[in-house]
């Protein structure tokens, strides 16, 4: 297995790699060494602005650039990107349909010791409810790199969620893997249940599939890197072919990936669904791995929920 890399680092390097286009402008709010926009800043200082600790101003400066034809990328922690500047993102980015990418790093519990005020567990929900917003949550180095390129080529508002801790590479060893906005990717086939995950829970879902295989249960694994627009086709196909679904996300079970999948199932293919995520509560300070275990964001809990979903068939 290859080197562990945080998605925020993969993102920062990819932004610098693909950021040569003259219309790309990057903004940060005193967090460039955390969000990793620093790689771009070092390479293209003439198209980088640090606006200080003023996220609202940053989003709207980016919006102003975008009205003139720029591709703007604004950076802060996910908790501020989706929460503190929700109004700016809704009214000044999405409503005027501007080409602004809102990049939120340090999402979820795995911020770790900094604690609950910095642990974005509602950001996917808040961002995906805004009309016209695209929401991307990559899981590893390779996927983050490809998703960053796709986002830069895509015109329109986008929320891009990255994480703090280094995570295992998983997608580069999947034959035929490719990233496309709006498409989920089947990482492993299976017939008894489907595990649909995003972000670092993709790695856990793959481990869960191995745990289930040891018990003779065949689990399909889908990496749902785009939460909006959600890939309805791959969900409906999984529901019809495996008859039970588990979602897994480093996010509140309300409003995120689990809800997005539930919406599709309700509309088109009602099968048992178990949602793994943070159960409508705030996070806490702690070691990231301990936090994931404490809140049940583990392969073991996904496997347990898979068996529950199968039993409900």
């Amino acid at each position, binding site marked *: 297995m290859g080197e562990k890399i945080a998605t925020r680092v993969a993102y920062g390097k990819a932004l610098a790699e693909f950021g040569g286009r003259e219309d790309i402008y990057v903004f940060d709010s005193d967090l460039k060494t955390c969000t990793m926009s620093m790689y771009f800043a070092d390479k293209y200082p003439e198209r980088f602005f640090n606006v200080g600790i003023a996220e*609202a*101003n940053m989003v709207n400066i980016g919006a*102003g650039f975008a009205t*003139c034809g720029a591709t703007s990328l604004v950076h802060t922690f996910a908790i501020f990107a989706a929460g503190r500047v929700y109004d*700016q993102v809704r009214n000044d980015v999405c409503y005027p349909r501007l080409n602004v990418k809102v990049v939120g790093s340090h999402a979820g519990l795995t911020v770790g010791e900094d604690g609950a005020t910095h642990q974005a567990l509602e950001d996917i929900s808040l961002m995906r409810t805004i009309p016209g917003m695209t929401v991307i949550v990559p899981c590893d180095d390779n996927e983050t790199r490809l998703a960053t390129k796709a986002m830069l080529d895509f015109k329109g508002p986008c929320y891009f969620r990255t994480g703090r801790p280094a995570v295992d590479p998983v997608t580069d060893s999947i034959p035929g893997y490719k990233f496309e906005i709006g498409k989920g990717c089947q990482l492993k086939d299976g017939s008894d249940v489907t595990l649909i995950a995003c972000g670092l829970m993709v790695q856990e879902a793959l481990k869960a599939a191995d745990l289930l295989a040891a018990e003779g249960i065949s689990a399909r694994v889908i990496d749902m890197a785009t939460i909006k627009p959600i890939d309805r086709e791959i969900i409906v196909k999984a529901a019809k072919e495996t008859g039970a679904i588990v979602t897994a996300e480093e996010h509140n079970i309300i409003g995120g990936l689990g809800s997005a999948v539930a919406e599709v199932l309700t509309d088109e293919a009602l099968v048992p669904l178990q949602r793994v995520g943070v159960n409508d509560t705030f996070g806490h300070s702690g070691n990231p791995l301990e936090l994931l275990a404490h809140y049940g964001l583990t392969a073991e809990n996904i496997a347990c929920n898979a068996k529950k979903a199968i039993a409900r068939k």
Partner: protein
Amino acid sequence: MLTEEKRKLELEAANIRKTALETIHTAGSGHIGGSFSMAEIVTVLFFKAMNIDPKDPDKKDRDRLVLSKGHCSPVMYATLARRGFFPVEHLKTFRKIDSDLSGHVEIHVPGVDMSGGSLGQGLSVALGMAMYGKCNNLGNYAYAIMGDGEIQEGQIWEAAMAAGFFKVNNLIGFVDNNQIQLDGRLTEVMDPNPIDEKFRAFGWNVINVNGHDVEEIADAIEEAKKSKDKPTMIVAHTVKGKGVSVFEDTNRFHGGQPTPEEYDLAIKELDDQIAALEV
């Protein structure tokens, strides 16, 4: 400014007020007070100062304007229509379900550079436009028009700090200092004064003008364009509802509507002003 040019601009401002009032009257709702207090500001910008072309509203090197006090869409739309961005007749659709002329300004309307509505956010947008212009050597200016109540919003001061720090000298702001906000007088609700000293402390060039004197406004813009290393804030001392006696200096017409009798009287007063200014 030549007397003839001044007369024409004053006549245009009076016509804009009348058109804005008729627009609001047809819609049955809309913001009169803040529209009327800034009539001379938009008149000077759209009929003299700004590099814009109604036949080519999207031209790359045009000057930009953000109406941060986006609820004053009636005066903005009346101005754009009279300047030729779309037919004056189209104003009759204002606030209607099948119209692009919504209650607050919308970016998709010809001549409008940014949507507005959530107060306190437009100065940051105009700052971004001005910075883009500098980055791309467009040689243009970005304007933002704010209300004086609006500058109670904290984001205004984030933008003020950044514009001063980045030395964005092609950013020109207006504070429509009519001293009245929705709930009452600024001094009773939340007094942001002294406005000029605050912006100076944030690194701005500040010019105080009589916001109903087209010559003073035009001169201030010319002076602002000479600034080498500072953004400029033009604090326009205005009267809410200016131009119609019953509308003036009250919060009653912030969003409220006149009675039919008051409306008729207002149109008559504006007609008299227009007649006096016509040759």
